[in-house]
């Protein structure tokens, strides 16, 4: 095998400029910045979308409830504007959604805990489901707060709902104060109410 001299030995050492050096420094800086950026990002899953509605006056929620409890105690119609002075939990749900099923108990507890003080109401809005399913679901799992069907999605888009369950906390003045994506627990809601200055 022939002994080989590296190419560079053969290239005349005339001045060639420093293009490669400067370009690689520039590329290096950009890449380091990119890496720093990527390294400091949280996984997208934990970044919850903030609703642009927070701090804004709540969009309207109104309609005929599809749940009528046997003793007739549930309110057949609901109007968010009539709830001034109370906290309102606006809950979007579907019977086919597992976390919704899991949070139902907690919502029942929450409503029971506040029944006496009457300082909190829950209203549920049906997300892509049938009235028959919803009636069966409430009969099985309890709950006698107003449940409003939204077949054309008017309220769903007004609230910017992306998937269920999603819950919003509306303060006694009618402003949206918090958005919870995923299932809620009564504890979490109570804590949020305290944080938001609505100690019960």
């Amino acid at each position, binding site marked *: 095998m022939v002994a080989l001299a*590296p*190419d560079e030995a053969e290239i005349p050492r005339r001045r060639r400029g420093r293009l*490669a050096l400067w370009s*690689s420094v520039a590329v290096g800086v950009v890449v380091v910045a990119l890496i720093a950026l*990527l390294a400091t990002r949280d*996984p997208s899953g934990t970044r919850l979308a903030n609703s642009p509605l927070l701090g804004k006056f709540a969009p309207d929620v109104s309609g005929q409830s599809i749940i009528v409890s046997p003793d007739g105690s549930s309110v057949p119609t609901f109007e968010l504007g009539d709830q001034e002075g109370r906290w309102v939990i606006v809950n979007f749900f579907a019977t086919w959604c597992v976390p919704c099923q899991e949070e139902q108990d907690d919502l029942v507890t929450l409503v029971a805990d506040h029944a006496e003080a009457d300082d909190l109401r829950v209203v549920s809005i049906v997300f892509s489901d049938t009235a028959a399913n919803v009636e069966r679901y409430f009969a099985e799992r309890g709950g006698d707060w107003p449940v409003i069907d939204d077949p054309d999605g008017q309220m769903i888009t007004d609230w910017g709902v992306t998937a269920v369950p999603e819950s919003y906390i509306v303060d006694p003045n009618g402003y949206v104060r918090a958005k919870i994506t995923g299932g809620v627990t009564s504890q979490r809601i109570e804590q949020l109410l305290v944080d938001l200055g609505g100690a019960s």
Partner: protein
Amino acid sequence: MNAVLGSAGIALGFAASVLGVITLVVGIRRQRPQLLAAGRSFSTLILGGAVLATLAMERALVTHDFSLVFVADNGSRATPLLYAVASLWSALEGSIILWVLVLAGYIVAVRYRFRRQADDPLVSWALIVLFAASAFFFGLMLGPANPFETVAGAVPTDGPGPNPLLQNHPLMAIHPPFLYLGYVGFTVPYAFAVAALITGRVGEGWLSVTRRWTLLAWGALTVGIVLGAWWSYEVLGWGGFWAWDPVENSSFLPWLTGTAYLHSVMVQERRGMLRVWNLSLLIATYSLTILGTFLTRSGVLDSVHAFSESDIGPWLLAYFAVVVLVGVGLIGWRGDRLRAPGRIDSPLSREGAFLANNVLFAAFAFVVLLGTVFPLLIEAVRADRISVGTPYFNRMVGPIGLALLFMMAVAPALPWRRASGEVLAKRLFWPAWAGAGALVVAVLSGATGLGPLLAFGLGGFAVGSAVRQLVLAARASRRAGGSRWRGVTGRANGGMIVHIGVVIVAVAFVSATSYQTSRQVRLEEGESARVGGHTITYLGIERTETAQKAVTKARVQIDGGQVFTPAVSEFPNATQTIGTPSVDWGLRHDVYLTLQAVPTEEGGAAVIGVIVEPLVSWLWIGGLLMAVGTALSAWPGGRRRPTDPSTMWSASAGPEPEPATASSPDDPVAVG
């Protein structure tokens, strides 16, 4: 048992990789051939480790060994054999086993290919880089992504099986392996680029070797991307095949820079120029594959194709940093000394065209990369988020794509060094008429819009140009006494076939996205609707239930002829239902049917989604042609057979080589 075997394989692979690196480095430093030989032999052990790990995992998957967390999470007794085997790459840990298996295969192939130049420091350095890469990926499985972790506590009796979307179509079994052959394959040219920079030998020798490895990886990546698009089309149910999704983009980025390299490397071979630029492209290509791997597996960006979140993100990011900084550092350190002298005489020349091609491909890659990471950039600076979606990419990439089609038409007709307008006018005359013909045909068949029409016209122009080359090559070959077959083999001619494939893909892409008709129709049993010139008749529902899934099929007749069955499947272990589209395949257009809503009561109305997409099936035909063209261009041509690389190196070690402009059978331009 499986866990022990598999872990042993991983440990073996890791140890062999690390020891291989150490032995080779010491061997080079002390110049001990025995040490170098010993170091090289570790490649066999690496392959052994990788094969052992793969076999152990496949055995566990096929025999339902739920004592492994990976099998318990991704396997199930109901999964058919094909998907059980393919489950290996349906989740993160297993996909890394596939990665090291492919990498080990490449390592052994490199060692075998260069067995006669084994003592050359350049080959040793390349092997060191390859060993280091395999040490990293084996290391991942020792640490954060251990596939052989065993279940704590009671062993489950069954598992959920792979994600339903991944067990819905056989393409899922072959698309990832091709993608990995491509991704991992770019490690080899990267290793040679680094080795060339370290040894300072960036002459023409190493690249005639690297070119073919790059071509192999590039061809596999092309097939992988096309199969991925096909899988999306067949499975996802929205009639689309490409969504500019972060994961798709990150497989496309190395393809773009790899394509740029495959063109600009020809300038280096002919004119000895652009050496450092070519090295930079190889480094960029491998870096982008790692960046893509990071983006898909770290959960930083959401995507349909993303793996579930895991802890290996920081590791991959660190590896990305090392890969880029080593490459960039070496170029900064040596690049200016290694740059080749020489200049391009005229922009109107083959090399000028390649330069323009490289600028366009670089811009293309820049747009795709920027669009992919831009939401992250904005979010880091401001609190709010923005999206960069399909409309952005189509708007930005459209003009670049048109410019590339134009270059594809003109460049093959350009001679090296300089061209006169007259020569060009003569050579491009018939190709240009082919373009005009394509344009007229498009207008007559009702195509509208400036962008699509330009794409069709320039596409026809480019095909004309490629066909002209192929005809000339075949003629020249026959005149020289060879067979006409020679006209399509070899780099230049195979490349022309790839060009035709690219044009077909581009035309299909434009036509399927610009002229699709999409409607949802609600039909009672026996009722018909007309969509995009077709009569769609809903006949009824068929239900089948197996242990694996419950399927509801709608029987839908198209134009009173064949009956198609778009379906919805429910998997017992998943909450989501998976739609299975049914496609009436055609060369003119596909009719793509989905079952949007199952009848609520027996015999009720169903909602059928109908999408008529013109020319969409040409995407797959074009992709196939690209693969065939790639294989043909890797076929040993009549010229520049990469003989013993060491002679090539010595040839290039002299003063700047000036390859003659003499014609050769493989160079039809000079002949015609």
